[in-house]
């Protein structure tokens, strides 16, 4: 019963051979379908579609300041996506990534609170990274143990832990870590600037954050392609039963994959605290965990396509913040576009594959 959702591979790389023009045709068709659906939704909501698209574009790539906001969203999305590459490889649905980001943020806040007033702020910053990574990894490991030892499907385990992590943040903000005087949804007390991640003052962007995202990409690509662990993850993901016969313990590698995923997610949460908000806020994860699941699916589980998709999704997220101000629309439009994009991609790709298959049967 524990693996009733598991009997098909999550990662499917066995694409049929398709020519470049076919590929472009598919992409264009998908985009047209998404645009048609989104426009329909906008008309349904009584909004001017062209204006909405214009504001999303201008709000994300219209100026350098907006662009740096996009990069700030791109960093956690890319970090989480890197982590998810490991878990998808082995066939796990790490929905708990959202809670792992939150847990990373909680641990980081804890570490930085210790460093308030200390002259060794640099050491505390490094310590806070490690704490964040540890927090995310612990939370992932918990979901992993529930999966391997407790027989709880990782979707339910992860989801339950997400809600628990979110509850903990609220409790901390309104309880032990509340701001002196007023506890409010605006979060904990802002840290002194020595405990902020160093940033380029003209852009308010942290080079360390950017470097960690690129580092994560390179590390993940190397791990997946060139190490034994990468190979084993893939082998087990493809066929857990035969992997077992080869002496690989699926449970053990599942936990390794979870730790990797949780570590990267925790780092993303850590950056959100020390690099972006400089405090713990209730929506510290900004749903980037859930969104990164869509990123990796749309990237067809490829390490190098994921950051490109993450950039596009970050543009949509940041750009749609303009919608409530400019057109009195809800900013959740970005989620609608992103979800439709993944569904349309899956549908068009599957449909084209079936057409090709039929054509081949007819020819032979």
């Amino acid at each position: 019963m524990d693996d009733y959702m598991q009997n098909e591979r999550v990662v499917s790389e066995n694409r049929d051979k398709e020519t470049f023009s076919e590929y472009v045709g598919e992409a264009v068709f998908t985009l047209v379908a998404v645009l048609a659906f989104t426009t329909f939704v906008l008309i349904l909501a009584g909004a001017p579609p062209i204006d909405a698209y214009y504001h999303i574009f201008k709000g994300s790539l219209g100026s350098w300041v907006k662009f740096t906001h996009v990069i700030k969203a791109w960093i956690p999305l890319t970090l989480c996506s890197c982590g998810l590459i490991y878990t998808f490889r082995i066939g796990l649905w790490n929905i708990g990534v959202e809670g792992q980001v939150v847990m990373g943020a909680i641990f980081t806040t804890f570490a930085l609170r210790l460093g308030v007033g200390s002259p060794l702020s640099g050491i505390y910053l490094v310590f806070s990274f490690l704490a964040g990574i540890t927090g995310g990894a612990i939370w992932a490991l918990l979901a992993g143990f529930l999966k391997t030892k407790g027989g709880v499907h990782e979707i339910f385990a992860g989801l339950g832990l997400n809600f628990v992590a979110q509850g903990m943040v609220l409790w901390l903000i309104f309880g032990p870590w509340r701001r002196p005087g007023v506890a409010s949804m605006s979060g904990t007390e802002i840290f002194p600037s020595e405990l902020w991640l160093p940033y380029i003052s003209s852009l308010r962007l942290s080079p360390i954050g950017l470097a960690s995202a690129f580092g994560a990409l390179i590390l993940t690509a190397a791990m997946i392609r060139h190490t034994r662990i990468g190979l084993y993850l893939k082998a087990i993901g493809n066929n857990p039963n035969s992997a077992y016969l080869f002496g690989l313990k699926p449970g053990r590698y599942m936990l390794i994959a979870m730790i990797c995923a949780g570590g990267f997610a925790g780092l993303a949460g850590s950056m959100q605290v020390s690099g972006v908000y400089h405090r713990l806020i209730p929506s510290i994860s900004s749903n980037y965990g859930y969104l990164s699941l869509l990123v990796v699916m749309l990237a067809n589980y490829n390490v190098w396509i994921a950051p490109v998709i993450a950039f596009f999704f970050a543009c949509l997220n940041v750009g749609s913040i303009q919608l409530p101000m400019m057109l009195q629309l809800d900013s959740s439009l970005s989620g609608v576009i992103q979800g439709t994009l993944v569904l349309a991609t899956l549908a068009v790709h599957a449909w084209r594959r079936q057409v090709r298959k039929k054509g081949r049967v007819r020819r032979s």
Partner: protein
Amino acid sequence: MSEIDLTILFASVIAAAAPILLATLGETITEKSGIINLSLDGTIMLSAMSAFVIALKTDNLFVGFVFAAVVGGLVAAVVAFFSIYLKQNQVAVGFVLTLMTRDLAYFIGSPYSRMQGPQVGPMSIPVLRDIPFLGDVLFQHNLPVYFSMVMIGVVWWYMYKTRLGLRLRSVGENPEASYARGISPNRVQMVYAVCGGLLVGLAGAAFSLCIKPGWGQPQGAEGSGWIALALVIFGGWNPVKAALGAYLFAFLQVMSIYFQGWLPSIPAQVFQVAPFPLMIFILVIVFFAQKESFVRWAEDKPVIRAIIHALYAAAPSALGRRYSEE
């Protein structure tokens, strides 16, 4: 410490359980045919929003309920279509739809948030309401609550006592054999995915038109779809057991309000997230109930053996598997 009035307690459990119960029954039907509709959480939000907006615009509650059911059926049809005809992973499609339908609900519903709207009024049943205790607990509700109670029996009867129900179960257990017997698994799965979706849609309407009237962000129904999905496992894919699970869950939900009053030192956030670790805990127990070594260990412990026996759950063998009719 406030006194508990048992009549009020049980009556509020019955009322609070209605939406989760409908969603759980719907998902049980869908999963019994072999399809997992993971999109429940988003579907409930979207249909809750649709029900409220339509009922507000037409000033007709019935139209609101019908529309919500159609929305639920449509989302389920998308999941089934992707699985049956496009051979895509049901979990992947369901998850994307969970996020997408919720955002769609927030986007389209935002102009209507915090608006006063129509709401289902109580309707006590004559004669039956005069039964002491039971009358007050069971027969002083509104129509959707009665409907949810009746559906437990209807779904059970349909699944286990009719020919069509046998076909439904056979497709979920062994689509190849069903096909050999002249049943089209594709069509059966499509039909029951949509049937289940209709009930999930009604669950959404039961939230926005009865239990948590109105629409807003957050609406208050967030997370309930996931609870329903877990309750299907808890109930071992049996509608009656799943319904008991839904009532148990509603009981805990209602009790948490009392607990909050009794234990003011524990922050409210703990009670809000308490259902989720509990859900995980129950799933762990359900898992151990299937383990042979554990069952053997419990052999001479009558209480534990009884619990294990009650929680024994076998998923439909073909659940989540893609089947190709060629």
